[in-house]
Structure formats: C-alpha cells, structure tokens
C-alpha cells in the first residue's frame, strides 16, 4: 500500500485537488452571483442581504466561509503552480512547429487566465472588502433597513463605483477572463474527477462552456446596467 504522502504528491491527486477546489469555487461564484443580482431588486434587498451575511451566527458563518474559501483558493492555486511547473519540465525541448487539433484558446491559457484572476481577486477585495482602493465610494454611505437598523449601504457603493467608466471596464475585462477560465475549467473538472463516461461526455462538454458564459454574463450585468444608467441611485 502506498503512503498518503506519495499519493498527495502525485500529479493525478494534485489534479483531483484542483478540480474539487475549482468546483467549490464555481459554487461560490454562483452564490456570489445570485447575491449580486439582488441589485436589480432595489437598494433595500441587497443591503438587507449583505447585512444578513455579515451578522449570520454573529459573524461566524461569514468568517467560516471566508476561511474555507481562502483554503480552497490556496489549494487551487498551489496545485496549479505545482502541475504547471511539472508540465513544463516534461517537455524540455519544444517543437519547431505545432498544429493543435482539439485544444482551445481557453484550455491552452488556463495558467495565464488563472494568474490574472488572482490579481483581479486581490483588486476586488481591496475595492469592496477592505476599502483600500476607491475608498471614497466605500466607507461613508449608510442605509436604514425597514427594521430600523443602520447598515452600510452596499447598493450606493456599487452604483457609485460602476458609474466610473475605468472601473467598469476593468471589471468587464476581468469577467471575460473569468469566462475564459471557466470555459475549459468546468468540463475539465468533471473529466478529472472521472464522473464522465461515453454517454455524458457530450453533455458535460456542452454544459461546461455554456455555464461559463452564463456566469460571465451574469457578473457583467450589474456594471453594464449601471454604466448604461439602467440602475441608479
């Protein structure tokens, strides 16, 4: 029997790790997206939702989720770096000519789209969570919920942010990157986890890319609506 360490270090286990963590991150994105779309229901809905997230279980749930998310994220990135390094080493001498047959732009650029997404996530956190950039949109606004509680006004913050074309363009470009990454990632994760077979391969290979487009469009909907003036304060 093999020791767990040997299994952990193996390429296939690292891939499995990447796939599992990746799928959890996709689930998170779906949750995040459904929250975002509350913007369209109006100021009260989204502010109430954001307040609920922060106070659920006296904040323990939010922190639990954050720690879990961070762990998945680190594992996902770490396995990606490990595997990419090994994959490079596996072909020390490149071909003079290569003609791809079945790989796609998305599949060939996973490392790059992934690295850009890390940068984006840091920016995004600095923007909305830490308030370290564009802070003028962040700290001041407050909102009184129908219950009478005074809470941060997420709605105003979002709308004011995306009223600036530069920020909107940055976010939209990032969403293209998300779409590109997921375009290959979702179907690929299913294959790596081995849940595909002859019958469902075509299904997975259709649903994966379709879902990636939906997610990217969904996230883009909010900034687009704001810059087009469909959502305003």
């Amino acid at each position: 029997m093999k020791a767990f360490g040997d299994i952990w270090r193996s390429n296939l286990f690292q891939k499995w790790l990447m796939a599992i963590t990746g799928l959890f991150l996709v689930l998170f994105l779906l949750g995040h997206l459904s929250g975002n779309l509350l913007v369209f229901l109006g100021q009260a809905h989204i502010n109430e939702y954001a307040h609920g997230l922060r106070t659920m279980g006296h904040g323990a749930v939010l922190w639990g989720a954050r720690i879990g998310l961070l762990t998945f994220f680190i594992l996902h990135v770490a396995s990606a770096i490990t595997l990419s390094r090994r994959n490079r080493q596996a072909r020390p001498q490149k071909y003079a000519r290569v003609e791809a047959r079945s790989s796609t732009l998305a599949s060939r650029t996973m490392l790059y789209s992934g690295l850009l997404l890390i940068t984006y996530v840091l920016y995004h956190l600095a923007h909305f969570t830490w308030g370290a950039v564009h802070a003028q949109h962040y700290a001041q606004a407050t909102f009184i919920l129908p219950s009478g509680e005074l809470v941060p006004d997420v709605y105003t913050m979002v709308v004011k942010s995306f009223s600036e074309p530069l920020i909107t363009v940055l976010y939209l470009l990032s969403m293209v990157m998300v779409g590109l990454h997921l375009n290959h990632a979702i179907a690929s994760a299913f294959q790596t986890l081995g849940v595909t077979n002859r019958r469902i391969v075509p299904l997975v290979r259709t649903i994966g890319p379709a879902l990636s487009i939906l997610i990217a469009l969904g996230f883009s909907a909010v900034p687009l609506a704001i810059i087009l003036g469909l959502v305003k304060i």
Partner: protein
Amino acid sequence: MNLRLHIWRQAGPNDTGMLKTYDLANVSEHMSFLEMLDVLNEELIAKGEIPVAFDHDCREGICGTCGMVINGRPHGPLARTTACQLHMRTFKDGDEIYIEPWRAKAFPVLRDLVVDRGSFDRIIQKGGFVSVNTGNAQDGNTIPIGKPDADRAMDAAACIGCGACVAACPNSSAMLFTAAKIGHLASLPQGQAERSSRAMNMVLQMDTEGFGACTNHYECEAACPKGISAEFIAQMNRDFVASALGGKG
C-alpha cells in the same frame, strides 16, 4: 512531386541537434511517408552523407514502432493513421514538411527521429497485466463476458504503444497510454482482482518517469492512430481516486 523537408538531425543523446533542410525530387504520390524517407536516405548514402535514423518496423500500422511529428502533428495530418500508413498523396507538389521526433523528457532522443520509449514498458511493469501463471486458467467459456464489455475492452486494448499521445500532449502526459491499459483490464472480470493496485501503481509510475499531468486538452485522443477515447482517462481518474480513498492500492 518535389518537396522541401526540414528534418531534425541529432547525432546522439547528448548532441544538441538542429533542423536541417533537404530537397527531394520526383516523389510518387503512391509512396508511403516512410518510403519517401527511404528514398531520401538512399540519396544521402549515395552522396556519402549519414542517412536519417527513424524507427519503423511492420509498416502496416500495428507495431507502434514508427513515430515522428510531421508538420506539427504526431504521425502527420490524417486522423487515425500511423506515419507508415500515411501516403504521399496527402501532400502536394512544393510542400514544405517539418519532421521532428517525439518530444518528451520521458522519451529521450537517441538519434535523429529515434526516441527511447522504455518508460512505457516500465509503466506496464507496474501492473498492466493480470497475474495469472501459465497453467492456472480455467476453461475460456467459464466466465461469460457480455459483448459490450468485450468490445469496450478491445477498444482500449487496441493501443499500439506508439507514444503519439505523449507527443501530442502539450504537457507530454502519458495519461491516454496508461488509461488504455487500465481501461482494457478494468472492463473485464479477469482484471478486477488487481484493479485498485493497478491504477495506483501505474499512475504513480507515470510521475516517476517524468511525464506531465493531464490538462484535458484531448490532443492525445485526436492524435491517437487507433482512436482511443479519453473516456478511458476519466475511468482511470475514478479508479485512482477510489484506490487512494479505499486504501487498497
């Protein structure tokens, strides 16, 4: 037809190697690709030069010995065709053709287009078999095997071990080769007893040999001269995880 060939020349494993250009005239469209190289080699010998070393044997697409990357594709432009079965009618007068060896750390170049694929043998040694000594067997019809299972096993077992999957993979991964053997034996009742340890040991040996990991581009499937499906890779992934979690491997 007249062709311009750019062929990888490398005198030995430690030589750096480079692409060299050769012009070849009067190539018949009925020649196989390897026969075209034979003709080139006879010309080189006549000129007192060293002929191009390339691996080949059966020349009917089954032994898996031949293999070269032709214009960026292992075994050349046709799907499901080995280099020896590729005929010059696929090319046209005036074409430039790039010919390179399989490129992978686990397939070191021995000379020109010849690589060492011993790593494949060592993967098989880790479990690509049923442990049955000669004489152990019961009557062949004792265990009925449904036609779909038998056919599926055959689909996987059709692998010729040529290495095109590794050559095509951007990561030089041997997943399709290894999965084909695991999938073949996992499809049959005979292969069940060692299924778990087989998946574990063969997968770990791929890493030891220095093959890369799979990123699901499916270039292997597209390059495979026997059309082996990447579905078998999914099955191997499943068997590997089951083995890792089941603690039997």
